């Protein structure tokens, strides 16, 4: 059985690639995947989003009973790293004031466990179930689980009308996070061979749920995007027709299949092309 991931991303229309403030990271071998969406109304959001996804891949702060408590400790070294990455002395007054308020980002982290290394009990597990998955989230980046051509989980948001432009997000400034810890979401479930997982930042996730609520199967559209050009054309068409907000857009397509084993891990997402494929046996 193989695990494959395809990553697609585009900056907001009108912005350059350097201004892209979403982030993603994955470890095929660790079966971990993460996306984050740095908030427009904060500065140095890109390195903050990047450090959150990298931190998750390295040490995911899972705690199903008190997800916020574990995350509070987990985030401290990332906040320190972010502060140390800024040349504060070189900032003009407005950049300093903005940076002191902190950077903000969503985080969605997701992990597939094999039955053997599952660290938690798996209530309801049947003989057919061979894998478990678990995820945690802050903000409006979403995970969709598709099994047997049906959407079986939508996390953390379930409905299109839950999206707004003022989500609660993780901040690099500890003072802003007091309200966050009770809002960290955790979810887990079982999955099967041939299941698909979709990780999407808010513009795409919102589009996905609107399509689903109108009766279509948006995962079919997303898994039919095979090239960089396909993804760019799909996003451009959706933005032009006001089906999708003009925002940084990031998509990870994860599938459990029987494809050819091929490892293509990329170290630096800025060097990745907008569509990358990675596969690994699990």
């Amino acid at each position: 059985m193989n695990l494959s991931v395809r990553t697609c991303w585009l900056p907001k229309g009108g912005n350059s690639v350097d201004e892209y403030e979403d982030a993603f990271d994955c470890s095929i071998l660790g079966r971990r995947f993460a996306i984050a969406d740095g908030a427009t109304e904060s500065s140095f959001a890109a390195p903050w989003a990047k450090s959150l996804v990298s931190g998750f891949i390295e040490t995911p702060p899972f705690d199903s009973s008190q997800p916020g408590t574990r995350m509070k400790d987990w985030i401290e070294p990332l906040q320190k790293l972010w502060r140390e990455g800024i040349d504060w002395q070189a900032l003009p007054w407005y950049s300093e004031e903005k940076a002191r308020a902190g950077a903000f980002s969503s985080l969605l982290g997701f992990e597939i466990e094999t039955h053997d290394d599952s660290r938690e009990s798996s209530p309801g597990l049947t003989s057919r179930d061979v894998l478990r998955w678990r995820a945690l989230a802050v903000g409006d980046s979403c995970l969709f689980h598709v099994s047997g051509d049906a959407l079986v989980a939508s996390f953390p948001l379930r409905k299109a009308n839950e999206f707004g432009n003022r989500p609660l997000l993780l901040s690099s400034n500890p003072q802003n996070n007091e309200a966050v810890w009770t809002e960290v979401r955790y979810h887990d479930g079982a999955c099967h061979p041939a299941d698909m997982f979709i990780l999407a930042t808010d513009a795409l996730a919102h589009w996905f749920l609107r399509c689903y609520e109108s009766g279509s199967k948006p995962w079919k559209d997303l898994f039919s995007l095979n090239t960089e050009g396909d993804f760019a054309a799909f996003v451009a068409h959706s933005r032009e027709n006001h089906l999708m907000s003009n925002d940084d857009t990031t998509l990870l397509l994860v599938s459990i299949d029987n494809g050819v084993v091929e490892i293509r891990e990329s170290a630096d997402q800025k060097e990745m092309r907008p569509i990358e494929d990675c596969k690994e046996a699990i």
Partner: protein
Amino acid sequence: MPYTAEISRKSPSCFVFLIDQSGSMSDSLAGEPGKRKADKVADSINRLLQNLVIKCTKSEGVRDFFEVAVIGYGAKVGPAFSGKLAGSTLVPMSQIASSARIEPRTKKVDDQAGGLVEQTINFQVWFDAVASGGTPMCEAFNQTHNLLEDWVSHHSSSYPPIVINITDGEATDGDPTPVAQSVTSLTTSDGNVLLLNCHISASPASPIAYPESDNGLSDEFARLLFRMSSVLPENIRAAARSEGMAVGDQARGFVFNADLEALIRFLDIGTRPSNLR
């Protein structure tokens, strides 16, 4: 739906601040003896500009999401920026950011021991207090109309300009209603120009923000300003409500003895975390 156009560098919006600089602005404020109304207004405008600059700041610098004009009306009517921007009309945000004069100010802050201690802070200044002459508000609106007629013709699909008029009293050059209406009749494809009025008074009346009717306004001039003010767009009302402000469906852009700084937060230039204050 109106007032939903994306505010971006490619499609910026615009602010015009109209500042009453008449002689009566040298009167003291209610409850703040020794502080002139003109000084209070100058501080308010400078803080509004600081907030706008910071709103537009990203890691690499300030993005030109807005252009800003400040028009004063008193002994004369015209551009009212001080310092490096003196004489300028519409100025992009990045230029505003780099043109501030820095003034050390003292403010009282919590000393963490139950008391207050004075701390020196840097205060950015683009606009200085002036108080002389009459209140030629009609002429100020007339100049605003000319400025924005040109602006909307070059930004036909932008988020409409927002005009903020700050005054303490009655116009001395006629009824400003018709010329104010000529300003708010200007449109982009996203809606009409928005007019917000801020009435400051020497009387110790309670502050009023974004009322739905003129009941409770103390004088005829306040009621006139209320009637001239635009109904707030739905998404601005929603943003205000999300911060706990009681804003009705017919709320107008009018405040009495209150400031408009919160308004800057309510403008949408992208994701704004709810835990960012």
